[in-house]
């Protein structure tokens, strides 16, 4: 199964109104070419699930500036003034999620778990409207799994089967979002042929990746 796809075809997999997960942490490990192509295409009314909203000119923040989101789930939006403006003026709904909870919710969504039980957020506004489960006398917040229609991810290297490797701090949310999305598209810095990636070296197995865009050709 060769999973290579052209950038133009990849962005057509995202439809107006979709929920999208986008990898990266303050624009480190973000699929910038996929984002640029989506902006050029002009997709709208998306719901975003992402660690943060990057910067106005870098990462997923460019999509915020292009007003592509109606709702945003993120742990931090303070580095992008446009997110703050849209949120305070009621243009975009922003749900703040603790970072460690967010990644576990995504993992639970991809791994078939019913939810996440964490102490994080207990006694704060994060707790509001959520179920608290008592286990052996200790309280835990029940956070639900998250899934998306499409995941847009970045990896240093992919093989044609979609197996991925990473460099530096670019793994962040890129490792689990593919499992939690109906369609996952990876922008790879480099693509290698079948058998050119050592099976011990793989960080994300190709089963979680549907399509690979060769970033070195862009």
């Amino acid at each position, binding site marked *: 199964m060769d999973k290579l796809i052209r950038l133009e075809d990849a962005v057509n997999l995202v439809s107006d109104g979709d929920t999208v997960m986008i990898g990266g*942490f*303050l*624009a*480190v*490990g973000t699929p910038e070419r996929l984002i640029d192509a989506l902006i050029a295409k002009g997709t709208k009314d998306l719901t975003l699930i992402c*660690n*943060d909203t990057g910067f106005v000119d870098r990462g997923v923040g460019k999509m915020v500036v292009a007003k592509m989101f109606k709702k945003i789930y*993120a*742990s*931090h*939006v*303070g*580095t992008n003034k446009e997110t*703050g403006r849209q*949120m*305070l003026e009621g243009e975009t709904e*922003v749900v*703040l999620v*603790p*970072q*460690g*909870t967010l*990644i*576990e919710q995504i*993992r639970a969504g991809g791994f078939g778990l019913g939810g996440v039980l*964490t*102490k*994080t*957020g*207990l*006694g*704060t*506004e*994060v707790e509001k409207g959520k179920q608290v489960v008592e286990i052996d006398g200790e309280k835990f917040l029940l956070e639900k799994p998250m899934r998306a229609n499409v995941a847009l991810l970045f990896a*240093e290297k992919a093989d044609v089967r979609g197996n991925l490797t*990473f*460099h*530096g*701090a*670019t*793994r*962040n*949310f*890129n*490792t*689990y979002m593919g499992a939690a999305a109906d369609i996952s598209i990876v922008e790879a810095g480099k693509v290698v042929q079948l058998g050119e990636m050592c099976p011990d070296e793989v960080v994300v197995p190709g089963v979680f990746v549907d399509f690979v865009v060769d970033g070195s050709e862009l």
Partner: protein
Amino acid sequence: MDKQQTQEFIARRVALELQDGDLVNLGIGLPTLVANYVPEGRDVLFQSENGFIGVGPAPTEEQIDPCIANAGAMPVTIVPGGSFFDSAVSFGIIRGGHVDVTVLGALQVAENGDIANYMIPGKMVPGMGGAMDLLNGAKKVIVAMEHTAKGNPKLLKQCTLPLTAVNAVDLIITEMGVIEVTPEGFVLIEQNPDYTLDEIKAATGAPLIISAALKQMA
């Protein structure tokens, strides 16, 4: 002391809390400075919640690698023996109690250890990032901050801003002194001799117990 000197003074005192073998997570801003003052010969590793252990000094121009940045998106290096991982492992380390010390800033700290440091409703809503997880998971929570904000106390009987975590803070280090959070409330254990006890009490919005073993702030 000007603002920079104050921050360095606080950071230097925080650094003395770090023990040999500790894994430490430093928040953005003042806490980041703590790394510069680790006592000679003390083996301390720093974790960055975006995905690595072994945060090293700022890179030279030639050393800059866009994939190696800290949780504040500043370029950093990684020390020998460091490792990169994804956000799920990163917060497993944090939530699971494997971080020995976290140093964070705060807007308000209450005498029972409640802390508010992620939003001012209607004004500044950056989000909690990893702070809620760190406050719940780290073995020891140190708040490093200036004692007051524009003359208003930040150490209070109760927080008035939305909480980041309840009952979480162990130690507060400011330019005025070192304060332990105990079941009895705030206890001043070290005093900066530049301030009188009356000045420190006046700058504190909750009763301040003076330790019988009060020392001069190092």
